[in-house]
């Protein structure tokens, strides 16, 4: 079974340009997440899709970032225009639908991709 795949693996763009990152989740996973790690800091949550709907986008840094998941399959994250501080690694992750039992969620494992390493110069 294929894991979470991300494209491109590496990208170098100039400040002010646009970059679009793509993520293909594990087949059948309703939940899709975007995270990023900037400048060797902690990994931070960006947003969470359940199928095609944005469940939580509280981590999106500003309106230069736009995430979509048309049809509830793959997702794209567009940065427009890119700034120097956007450099880092962008991780996509996915997990199956959560199952609830006795009032508690199952705590599904979230599986991450290899990341898209973005450098803005």
């Amino acid at each position, binding site marked *: 079974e294929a894991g*979470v795949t*991300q494209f491109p693996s590496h990208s170098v763009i100039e400040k002010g340009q646009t970059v679009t990152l793509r993520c293909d989740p594990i087949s059948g996973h309703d*939940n899709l*997440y975007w*995270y990023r790690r900037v400048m060797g*800091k*902690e*990994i*931070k*949550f960006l947003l*969470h899709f359940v199928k095609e709907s944005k*469940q*939580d986008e509280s*981590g999106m840094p500003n309106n230069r970032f736009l995430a979509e998941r048309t049809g509830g399959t793959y997702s794209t994250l567009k940065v427009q225009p890119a700034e120097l501080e956007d450099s880092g690694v962008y*991780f996509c*992750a996915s*997990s199956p639908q*959560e199952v609830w039992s006795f009032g*508690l*969620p*199952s*705590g*599904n*494992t*979230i*599986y*991450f*991709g*290899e*990341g898209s390493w973005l450098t803005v110069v």
Partner: protein
Amino acid sequence: AQSVAQPEDQVNVAEGNPLTVKCTYSVSGNPYLFWYVQYPNRGLQFLLKYITGDNLVKGSYGFEAEFNKSQTSFHLKKPSALVSDSALYFCAVRNTGFQKLVFGTGTRLLVSP
């Protein structure tokens, strides 16, 4: 608010010796705890998780972690380190209400031959 602390930026251990990578957390409600590993220029690989039940959790590559509710800790351990264990280790937590993970800053493990 949820948070994770990994107090050590780097842990050095000789091959064959036991290793411990520390993690403490803060979360409202029941904590769901995870360890991930990142090898150089690679993505995050899931190692193990604690959801409920036995406080000692066993995971991939011989790693295990012990959940301690009173100390709000979830330290990662391995009885005998390998050079190939050298990598960046991340502890993460979520609560029952939200599926997003909150990560620590990571601990670099360096195992010397």
